[in-house]
């Protein structure tokens, strides 16, 4: 029994994990890649890459249609992927899992379909100041179309929602609250369970943008009691172009179809169409089949490591990096919430984030610079952009050391 488990420490076998991600061994600008842009998209483990490869080599057929063996096999596989996601989110039914193109698509689906049914002139929709443009624009357009009003929950200097202000916004005109679980720019973990509870006490449904939350924590949609939960496959170590909308059956059944076409119907005549049951009602056209399968494979992969273990390890990285970065003169962290995911946004006195990002790139270090699709948030902090380092469980403290060295070097060069 050589490999006894260490229970107290986050037991991550980092060498083994890194070996699972082929891209991590490549070089960028002659230096070993340090990938700290996980908030934008995460890298893919070999099992996901092989699942996609295998799909095209041995499984490719259209689903839900053919009587032939290939079609039947892949339909079973695709529906198995849906069940994997259902279990992962602890959704009550598999048909509450709608495959979409990603978080943006999921939110657009709800804004459009829920909006058609439930939003009229003078109604109000609540979002927060820290939303990604993807959770602002669909609601903004809906409000413009319907003559509804968008209300915004303000935040404090640390980047936390002002809960008393949220409660003040609640009134009978509010039809839905749409909120991010974790801020992509600040890393703030919002108290979504509490928010849902408060909203539900006034019979207001809540949509959670979980794009940044799913890679870092276990999500239980029943425990949260979320009405809608949206996320993307590619941030969860799965393929791009596939995502999920979880929706409570009672809402999805009442909502009209979003996009329509092949696969969404029971019968069609030129007078009237009878639409299919969930989830097919919301899945028009041939879906991203290998995407769904790849996403389920990614979920299996992270569940093997365990999201609790991942969360613990990433928190260690966050604390380690935060301490190191604070020691650098002129650096200011934007987003200092008590409850934070492994995302650090910062600015450097007198220097443009773009310049820092360019120098770091020369050192093989991938970070994100700019407004991170959260311009209203940037306006709130009175800045044009930040440099953002976002960590995943395959990152290491040694990489953070290199990043800090690189950052110091960039500052020295640019000052």
């Amino acid at each position, binding site marked *: 029994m050589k490999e006894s488990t260490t229970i107290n420490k986050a037991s991550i076998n980092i060498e083994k994990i890194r070996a699972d991600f082929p891209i991590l061994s490549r070089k960028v*600008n002659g230096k070993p890649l340090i990938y700290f842009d996980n908030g934008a998209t995460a890298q893919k483990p070999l099992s996901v890459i092989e699942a996609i490869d295998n799909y095209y080599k041995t499984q490719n057929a259209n689903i839900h249609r053919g009587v032939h063996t290939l079609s039947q096999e892949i339909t079973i596989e695709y529906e198995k992927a849906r069940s994997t996601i259902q279990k992962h989110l602890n959704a009550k039914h598999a048909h509450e899992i709608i495959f979409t193109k990603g978080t943006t698509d999921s939110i657009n689906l709800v804004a459009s379909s829920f909006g058609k049914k439930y939003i009229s002139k003078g109604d109000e929709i609540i979002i927060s100041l820290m939303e990604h443009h993807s959770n602002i624009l669909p609601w903004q357009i809906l409000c413009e179309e319907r003559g509804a009003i968008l209300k915004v929950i303000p935040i404090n200097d640390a980047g936390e929602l002002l809960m008393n202000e949220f409660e003040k916004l609640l009134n009978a005109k509010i039809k839905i609250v749409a909120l991010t679980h974790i801020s992509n720019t600040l890393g703030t973990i919002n108290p979504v369970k509490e928010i849902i509870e408060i909203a539900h006490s006034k019979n207001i449904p809540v949509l959670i943008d979980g794009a940044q939350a799913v890679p870092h924590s276990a999500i239980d949609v029943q425990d949260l009691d979320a009405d809608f939960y949206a996320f993307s496959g590619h941030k969860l170590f799965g393929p791009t172009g596939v995502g999920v909308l979880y929706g409570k059956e009672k809402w999805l059944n009442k909502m009209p179809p979003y996009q329509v076409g092949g696969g969404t119907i029971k019968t069609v005549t030129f007078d009237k169409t009878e639409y299919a049951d969930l989830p097919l009602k919301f899945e028009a056209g041939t879906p991203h089949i290998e995407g769904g399968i790849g996403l389920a494979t990614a979920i299996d992969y992270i569940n093997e490591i365990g999201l609790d273990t991942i969360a613990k390890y990433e928190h260690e990285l966050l604390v380690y990096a935060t301490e190191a970065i604070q020691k650098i003169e002129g650096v200011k962290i934007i987003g200092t919430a008590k409850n934070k995911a492994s995302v650090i946004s910062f600015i450097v006195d007198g*220097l*443009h*984030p*773009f*310049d820092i*990002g*360019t*120098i770091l790139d*020369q050192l093989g270090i991938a970070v994100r*610079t*700019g407004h991170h699709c959260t311009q209203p948030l940037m306006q709130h902090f009175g800045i*044009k*952009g930040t440099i953002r380092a976002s960590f995943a469980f395959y990152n290491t403290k040694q990489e953070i050391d290199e990043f800090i060295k690189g950052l110091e070097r960039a500052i020295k*060069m*640019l000052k």
Partner: protein
Amino acid sequence: MKIEEIENEIIEEFEMFDDWMQKYEHLIELGKSLPLIDAKYKTENKLIKGCQAQVWLHSELKDGKVIYTADSDAIITKGMVALMIRVLSDHTPDEIMNAKLNFVEKIGLTQHLSPTRSNGLVSMIKQMKLDAIAYKIKQ
């Protein structure tokens, strides 16, 4: 000097650098030495949109030649701007319109021409050429 001759001069200059650090240090120096644009031209309508770094570009026609001045809030971008001005400014609209600007690739800075939203260089070159076309039409 012709545009191509200036490009060659820059290529030679950059050949002296052994590594990326020297190259970027040079760009940063160029950025710092770029003459300041007249404050009255640092306005919204002179701003080139679509990039992380803000770039202001002003041009005027003097004796049949286009004179550019510019500024940026990012120093590396400003260095690139300085190079573009050195190459294109003080030339006729025709010369500017026909400039191929191969030097960017030759000095190993093509990443600044990649079609991402992160850099204003592509938009800036486009605007410089558009200004030249506008002067040509007016002439």
